[in-house]
């Protein structure tokens, strides 16, 4: 099977004026302000279980359960129900937009091509920006949204990636095989950060490659909010668990540059495909101390990024990436021209990182941010430890085309795009046509008023006294998706969807 993928991005939120704000209230208000076509508060939470561990057991509690219980207790004083606090909106493109405790979160629908993924991610940025602009105009106090991963006080929030894989790939092979890749890929998918942090604490000034690399202390675990692991073991496939697993990557930064998003997800998907296709264990790179290597690479200002391998050699992080690239070439040959181009672009970035790291500033967030802010710093005579640099760092991530530094660079022509701008920034909230998201999104577009509940792996609709479930837990082949789209297009009412092989009455 071909790997499918999606992103889930938590966004930082504050206001331009005023002192301390209630970030939960702001996040709820932002999500509830969305007017994009979709169905609200019909997400089916019963189908979620973040306690199941891919290593074959179920944990009694997550480390964050106590914190979450405290948050729920605080939220209980709000005049809103649980459902209203979450304010889930399932959009017509099959995406999910909701308040995840204290952050607006946009989850792309499932994608099978990188062009779809980059477009869906950009659509989320536009949706968020539109909500902020509307509330700001109404209140006279701008809402500032940051697509980043830290507040420089040791509070991190995530941009998670999800990859659907065959269950037949043993967990141990998967986790072991991905470790060195995830630690070293920050050389091209880090978003850059002016500062060093620990959990709940700012440590000091200084530039590093990745926003998230200060926050990982475990090799593997099911947790995501405390003592975060390099490899997350959450076993929640959102698909038939007998046939599939979802590899949940929590280590990545949120990227603004579409090229960085394209490289991050594309390279990760191909490495996973190579593992699924039987890349031999003895050829997988291994690091002597992955947890130490993660911040060491991120903070290495020589930009040689040396790492110690399990075999005792010292190599550059780029060499480790190149070893994975060779495995991909051998065990996951490109399925089409688009994937072949990803391999070429990955190779080229690795060469450029070795030759002249800042030559990648036309593609990579960390290099673009560094070059821009250092140019400004030198011109203005700002000290290397001036807190202003953190404000400029934040501004790179501001989701506001008129003020955000990323957008300023983009609009000056500084970035290469992996696909035509019209494709990336079409902003139509249209679903990917190649995955089950087309069916979820199609139901919402066509029968939104009849949707009783929705989840990644299913939609329940009402038609009079009928309750119809579309079980999307095994709808991953192009033929099945196409058949579903054809029936959905012809259906005049939800009951007519019962001709689908994965539909049934409840």
């Amino acid at each position, binding site marked *: 099977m071909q790997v499918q993928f999606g992103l889930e991005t938590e966004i930082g939120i504050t206001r331009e004026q005023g002192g301390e704000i209630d970030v939960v209230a702001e996040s709820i208000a932002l999500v509830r302000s969305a007017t994009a076509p979709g169905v609200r508060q019909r997400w089916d939470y019963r189908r979620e279980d973040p306690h199941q561990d891919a290593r074959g057991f179920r944990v009694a509690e997550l480390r964050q359960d106590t914190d979450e219980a405290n948050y729920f207790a605080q939220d209980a004083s709000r005049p809103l129900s649980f459902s209203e606090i979450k304010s889930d909106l399932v959009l017509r493109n099959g995406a999910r937009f909701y308040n995840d405790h204290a952050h607006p979160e946009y989850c792309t629908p499932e994608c099978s091509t990188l062009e779809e993924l980059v477009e869906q991610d950009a659509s989320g940025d536009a949706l968020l920006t539109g909500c902020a602009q509307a509330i700001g105009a109404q209140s006279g106090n701008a809402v500032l949204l940051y697509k980043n991963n830290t507040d420089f*006080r040791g509070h*991190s929030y995530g941009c998670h990636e999800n990859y659907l894989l065959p269950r037949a790939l043993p967990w141990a092979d998967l986790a072991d095989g991905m470790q060195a890749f995830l630690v070293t890929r920050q050389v091209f998918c880090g978003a850059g950060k002016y500062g060093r942090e620990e959990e709940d604490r700012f440590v000091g000034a200084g530039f590093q490659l990745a926003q998230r690399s200060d926050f990982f202390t475990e090799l593997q675990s099911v947790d995501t909010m405390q003592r975060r692991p390099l490899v997350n073991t959450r076993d929640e496939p959102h698909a038939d668990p007998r046939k599939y697993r979802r590899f949940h990557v929590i280590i990545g930064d949120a990227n603004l540059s579409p090229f960085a998003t394209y490289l991050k997800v594309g390279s990760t998907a191909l490495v996973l495909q190579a593992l699924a296709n039987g890349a031999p264990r003895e050829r997988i790179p291994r690091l002597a101390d992955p947890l130490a290597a993660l911040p060491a690479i991120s903070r290495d200002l020589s930009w040689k990024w040396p790492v110690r391998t399990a075999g005792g050699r010292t190599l550059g992080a780029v060499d480790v990436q190149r070893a994975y690239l060779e495995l991909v070439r051998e065990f996951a040959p490109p399925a089409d021209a688009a994937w072949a181009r990803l391999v070429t672009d990955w190779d080229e970035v690795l060469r450029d990182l070795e030759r002249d790291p800042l030559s990648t500033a036309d593609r990579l967030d960390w290099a673009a941010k560094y070059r821009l802010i250092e140019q400004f710093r030198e011109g203005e005579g700002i000290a290397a430890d001036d*807190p202003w640099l953190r404000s400029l760092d934040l501004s790179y991530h501001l989701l506001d085309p008129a003020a955000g530094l990323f957008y300023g660079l983009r609009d000056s022509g500084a970035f290469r795009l992996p696909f035509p701008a019209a494709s990336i920034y079409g902003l139509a909230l249209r679903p990917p046509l190649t995955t089950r998201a087309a069916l979820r999104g199609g139901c919402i577009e066509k029968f939104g008023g009849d949707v009783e509940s929705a989840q990644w792996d299913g939609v329940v609709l009402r038609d009079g006294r009928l309750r119809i479930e579309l079980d999307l837990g095994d709808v991953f082949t192009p033929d099945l998706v196409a058949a579903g789209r054809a029936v959905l297009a012809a259906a005049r009412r939800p009951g007519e969807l019962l001709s689908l092989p994965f539909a049934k009455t409840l």
Partner: protein
Amino acid sequence: MPDPIQKPRVVPPSPGGGGGDGPKEPKVERPNTDELMKRMRKVDPEQAKRYRQRTGQ
């Protein structure tokens, strides 16, 4: 067991730091950053000090 990571061959640099076969925007070696510098001067130096979030996932 031999170390699976081999030092790569030396490859020539890519012209202009770019390449590949796909569609691209026009390549700009050094963007005009005058407008950006103005934008950056407007960034409140205290903004990050005021910024506080809850830990997320």
